[in-house]
C-alpha cells in the first residue's frame, strides 16, 4: 500500500510540473476504515475542508480557513478516503479555461495549453497523478477540463450531492462531481458522497432507476459545430458503441444557443447576489475598519480584490436583475430554461442517453485564449451548458485524440439516471482502449 508521504511527494511533483494545487498539507492524518481506505484524493478549492485554507481561486478570500467540512467530503472521509490537497480553479468557477485566476494550471499533455475550467486543477491533477478529485460544475466545469486533460469527469443530477460547504457560484446550477482515471472510480466516489442532507434543502434522494432501452442518440448539431478532428474522434467512439449492439439515432435540439444565453443570464444573476457577501466582515480580506471614513470606502476597498471576470459577472448579473430589465433578461431566461428542460426530458424519454463532444475543440493554447473576447469565451460552453442548465447527469469520457491532444465524448442521461450514464460510459471506455 502506498504511504501518505509518497503520495504527498507525488502531489508536490504534479504541482511543480503543472501548477494544479492551491494547497498541499504538510502531512495527512490517519483515516477511517472503509471502502475507500487507501484512496487519496484532491478537492477543488471551492469546497470547504476544516482547517485547510479555501480561496475558490479568488484573492478576496485570501486568509479564509473554513471551520467546517463540506458534507460531500466528510462522507468520503468517513468511508476511508484521504484528502491530499486543494486544486486550483477559475475564481468562483467563472471560466472555461482556468485562466481567470492568479494561479493557472497547465495541461499535462502540453504545458503550452490550458487544462480547461473551471475545475482545471482537478483534471490536471488526475491526469498527472492518476488520483481522483472531488470537482464541481455549474455550466460545464467538470466536462471541459476532463475532456481537455483526457480523464473521466462526472457531473451528477442537480441535488444528488449536498452543496453544504460549497463556496457557491450559482445556487440553482452548482453540482459536486468527480474526476478520475476510470469510469468506475469516478462513479463509485460520486455514489459514496450522494444523498440528501439536512444541511442543504435542495439535496435529494435519487429516483428509481429506469429500464434501459438499448437506444441512444447523437445531437447532430453539436458534432457539426466541433472542430473536424474532435468530430472525427467522437464519431469514431460512437461507431464503436454501435458495435456493442447499441442502436444509434440522430436528433436535433431547438434550443442550443438559447440555452447558452439563458444559462449565462441566470448564472451571472445568481453569482452577483452570492458575491454580495464579500464585504470584508466575515471572510477573507478584512482590513481594519478604523482606517476608513465610511462603510462605502471600506466595502469598495475590500471589493477591489475581485479580478476582471468576477467584476464583469457581477456587473452583468446585477444588470440582468435590476429594475426595468429583470423581466427582459432574468425572468425570460427562467422561462427559456423550462423549454430547455422540457426538450431534454422529452428526448431522454425516447433514448437512454444523448451523445455529443464534450467540447467543440481540443485544449487551446494560452496564446490563443488571450485573443478571445468574453462573448467568444462564453460560446465555447455550447456543448456543456444545455445539460447543466437542465440539471441532467453527464460524464465526459476520453475518446481518442486530435492534434495529439485528448478529446472527450459527453454522455448525458435523464435526472437521477446516473446508472445508465455509467453503463454507456463504461462501454465507451472499454472500446477506447
Amino acid at each position, binding site marked *: 500500500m502506498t504511504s501518505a508521504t509518497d503520495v504527498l511527494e507525488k502531489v508536490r511533483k504534479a504541482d511543480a510540473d503543472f501548477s494544479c494545487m492551491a494547497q498541499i498539507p504538510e502531512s495527512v492524518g490517519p483515516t477511517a476504515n472503509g471502502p475507500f481506505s487507501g484512496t487519496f484524493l484532491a478537492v477543488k478549492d471551492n469546497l470547504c475542508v476544516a482547517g485547510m485554507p479555501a480561496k475558490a481561486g479568488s484573492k478576496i478570500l485570501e486568509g479564509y480557513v473554513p471551520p467546517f467540512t463540506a458534507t460531500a467530503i466528510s462522507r468520503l472521509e468517513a468511508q476511508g478516503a484521504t484528502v491530499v490537497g486543494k486544486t486550483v480553479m477559475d475564481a468562483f468557477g467563472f471560466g472555461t479555461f482556468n485562466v481567470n485566476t492568479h494561479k493557472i494550471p497547465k495541461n499535462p499533455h502540453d504545458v503550452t495549453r490550458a487544462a480547461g475550467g473551471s475545475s482545471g486543477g482537478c483534471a490536471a491533477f488526475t491526469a498527472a497523478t492518476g488520483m481522483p478529485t472531488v470537482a464541481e460544475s455549474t455550466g460545464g466545469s467538470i466536462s471541459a477540463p476532463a475532456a481537455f486533460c483526457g480523464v473521466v469527469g462526472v457531473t451528477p443530477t442537480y441535488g444528488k450531492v449536498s452543496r453544504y460547504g460549497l463556496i457557491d457560484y450559482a445556487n440553482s446550477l452548482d453540482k459536486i462531481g468527480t474526476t478520475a482515471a476510470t469510469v468506475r472510480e469516478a462513479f463509485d466516489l460520486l455514489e459514496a458522497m450522494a444523498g440528501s442532507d439536512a444541511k442543504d434543502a435542495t439535496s435529494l434522494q435519487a429516483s428509481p432507476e429506469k429500464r434501459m432501452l438499448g437506444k441512444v442518440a447523437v445531437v447532430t448539431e453539436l458534432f457539426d459545430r466541433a472542430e473536424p478532428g474532435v468530430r472525427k474522434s467522437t464519431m469514431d467512439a460512437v461507431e464503436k458503441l454501435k458495435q456493442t449492439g447499441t442502436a444509434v439515432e440522430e436528433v436535433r435540439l431547438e434550443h442550443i444557443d438559447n440555452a447558452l444565453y439563458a444559462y449565462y443570464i441566470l448564472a451571472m444573476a445568481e453569482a452577483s447576489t452570492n458575491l454580495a457577501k464579500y464585504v470584508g466582515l466575515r471572510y477573507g480580506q478584512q482590513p481594519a475598519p478604523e482606517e476608513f471614513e465610511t462603510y462605502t470606502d471600506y466595502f469598495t476597498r475590500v471589493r477591489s480584490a475581485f479580478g476582471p471576470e468576477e467584476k464583469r459577472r457581477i456587473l452583468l448579473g446585477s444588470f440582468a436583475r435590476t429594475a426595468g430589465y429583470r423581466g427582459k433578461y432574468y425572468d*425570460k431566461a427562467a422561462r427559456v430554461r423550462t423549454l430547455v428542460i422540457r426538450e431534454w426530458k422529452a428526448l431522454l424519454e425516447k433514448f437512454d442517453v444523448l451523445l455529443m463532444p464534450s467540447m467543440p475543440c481540443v485544449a487551446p493554447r494560452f496564446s490563443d485564449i488571450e485573443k478571445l473576447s468574453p462573448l467568444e469565451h462564453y460560446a465555447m460552453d455550447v456543448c456543456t451548458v444545455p445539460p447543466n442548465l437542465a440539471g441532467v447527469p453527464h460524464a465526459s469520457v476520453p475518446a481518442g485524440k486530435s492534434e495529439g491532444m485528448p478529446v472527450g465524448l459527453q454522455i448525458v442521461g435523464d435526472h437521477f439516471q446516473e446508472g445508465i450514464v455509467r453503463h454507456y460510459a463504461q462501454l465507451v471506455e472499454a472500446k477506447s482502449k
Partner: protein
Amino acid sequence: MDVKKEVERIAAAQRIPLTEEEKEAFGRQVGQVLAAFDKLDQVQTEGVPPSYHPVDIPAQMRADEVEPSSAPVGNAKRVEKGYLRGPRMMKTA
C-alpha cells in the same frame, strides 16, 4: 441605452471600483454580451412558467430551534459580544 453609464451606475451600487480603462472595456464587452442575450426576445415563452431549479425541490421543514454553530462568525477578525464589528455608517463630524 448608454451601456458605459449603466456599467458605472451598477459598479457604484455594487461597491466595485473601476479604472477609466475598465469602464471603457466593460462598457464595450457588456454591450456585446447584452446584444447576444437580446436574441432570447425571439423565443416564444407566453404561458411557459419559469424554472428556478432544474428539478422539483419539495419544501423541507425542520423544528424552529437554535442550533450551535461557529460558522457565521468563525472567520471574522472583529467580533464583539457575538456581533460583527464593521466600519462606520457615516462620517464623523
